[in-house]
């Protein structure tokens, strides 16, 4: 975005810590502050869902079917008379859990595979790289749909599907970073003093490739939330009656003539939260991995 500053012009002493940079990046841009506020609200709502939701998200009421927004039901009710606001509030828990669990799991597995491939090279590297390249040829959503087609819905299956869809990306970044780190003199030094390979990897390789991995993890929280919503919308993610923002839209579409409010509400929330995590991810990337930002 901004023109990069010639490193030679930067004073050597003024290397700010990553934390200081992060603080500067967040508070310099109004958009990032907005994103941070949205994310904090989102986490609070998800954590305190039972206290915030005015009704039981699963409670049906024949008398209150397809009500437009009113004082009693701020976003109206669905075809079973369930309160939309309460369903949206509880649905946020799904998005929060999937948004964090899958990228973190994928980061761990992907880093492991990438470091192994990058550090040892040879046949292991060729096999891992080939499979990674192949999986990367698939858009994450399509990969997730195809795996979910085999596994079906349900909590752990969705976790597995999203994790598999994200792992190749982490593996590729981890492998490339490991290849670069392996050339560094400190690795040679560690080998020379007789440090065992697992120790070298854990103490000297992993910490030095952490920045791009952390950046990727934050950037993919938004993707994970959107992907979970897509899968639930397709009926192969979170299964009804449990509310998820995706399956609320699915229910809404089947009840299009009854009330458009579930669709409008749930979709607006997905958009807002994904937007916020995208902005935050950009900020983290600018702070930790300035070279990757454009």
């Amino acid at each position, binding site marked *: 975005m901004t023109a990069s500053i010639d490193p030679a012009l930067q004073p050597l002493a003024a290397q700010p810590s990553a934390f200081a940079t992060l603080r500067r990046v967040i508070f310099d841009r109004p958009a990032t502050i907005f994103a941070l506020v949205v994310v904090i609200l989102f986490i609070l709502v998800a954590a305190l869902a039972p206290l915030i939701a005015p009704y039981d998200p699963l409670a049906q009421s024949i008398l209150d079917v397809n009500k437009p927004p009113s004082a009693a039901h701020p976003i109206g009710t669905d075809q079973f008379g369930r309160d939309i606001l309460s369903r949206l509030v509880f649905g946020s828990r799904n998005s929060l859990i999937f948004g964090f669990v899958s990228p973190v799991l994928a980061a761990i597995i992907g880093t492991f595979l990438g470091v192994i491939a990058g550090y040892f090279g040879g046949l292991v590297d060729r096999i891992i790289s080939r499979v990674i390249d192949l999986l990367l040829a*698939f858009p994450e959503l*399509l990969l997730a749909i195809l*795996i979910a*087609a085999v596994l079906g819905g349900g909590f752990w299956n969705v976790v597995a599907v999203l994790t598999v869809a994200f792992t190749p990306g982490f593996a590729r970044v981890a492998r490339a970073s490991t290849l670069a780190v392996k050339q560094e003199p400190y690795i040679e030094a560690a080998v020379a003093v007789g440090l065992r390979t697992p120790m070298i990897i854990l103490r000297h390789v992993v910490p030095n490739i952490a920045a791009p991995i952390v950046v990727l993890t934050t950037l993919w929280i938004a993707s994970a939330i959107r992907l979970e919503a897509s899968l639930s919308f*397709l009926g192969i993610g979170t299964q009804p009656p449990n509310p998820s923002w995706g399956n609320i839209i699915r229910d809404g579409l089947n009840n299009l003539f009854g009330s458009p409010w579930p669709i409008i509400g749930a979709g607006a929330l997905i*958009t807002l939260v994904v937007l916020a995590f995208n902005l935050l991810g950009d900020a983290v990337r600018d702070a930790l991995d300035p070279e990757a930002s454009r």
Partner: protein
Amino acid sequence: MTRYIVVRLLDAIPTVLLVLTLVFIAMRILPGDPAVAALGDFATPEQREAFREKMGLNAPLWQQYLTFVVNSLTLDFGASMMNGRDVLGLIAYNLPYTIELTIASVLLGVLIGVPFGVWAATNPNRAPDSAMRGFSLIGYAVPDFYLGALLLIVFSLNLGWFPINGGGEGFLDRMHHVFLPALTLAFIKAAFLGRLTRTALLEVLGRDYIRTARAKGAREPRVIYRHGLRNALLPLTTGLGLTTLTALSGSVAIELVFNRPGLGKLLISAIAERDYAVIQGGIVVFALFVVAINLAMDLAYVLVDPRIRVS
């Protein structure tokens, strides 16, 4: 150049085999007993045994694998377990609708995104650039099925300008049916392509030959399109390939929103009905499509980048 094309084509063979192997592993090994996965927990042991026999699941694994690969390559996916119809026939019926939607959305996406990106790049840090940034932020955040549902509510339900569901009959009717779904996907593709165009063009416009072109008195449109955009085509080609791939994956949800026939709709209904044969056929065809699009993208580089043609 011939060498490059031949190498790429030959490279697709192991890729296809690897894809089929992964699909085989996923379908036969991951879910435990496919008979349970297909028939559900309440099927009797006799029903499961009949299913295994019918699907050839009693044969040794290597034999199953060979049969699977050969059948997939000859596009023989058997018959649907729900209605007994030929799976290949079902796919052949649905496929044109998906291809139509994918192509229409990529075309619309390019028509909207590229000019928008050029406009932003030629006005950096001014209003058009900010508009581009806002547009791409929204485009990256809004789920396609939500946008589709909103367009459906406004333009089909309230205004009645477009049909609510179906794929249409005859050319004009089909175009009428595909427009709104394609526009939905195109909006999101345009956000991506617009941003890509902006970045690529901004970089090119800073080069020496652009200054030369301006210095020799070339008019600005000529500078931008002839000297600028042409040299930004390489990243755009990659972007176009990615766009086609994501349009293909996006079509699944969009077909559901607009209740259109298509490969995604077929696959999703097959999952709901646990129609094992259709699921398997659908997955293989989707996977082969991804390989084909990637191959086409590699070959498109030949047209765009003369350096490949020479070497």
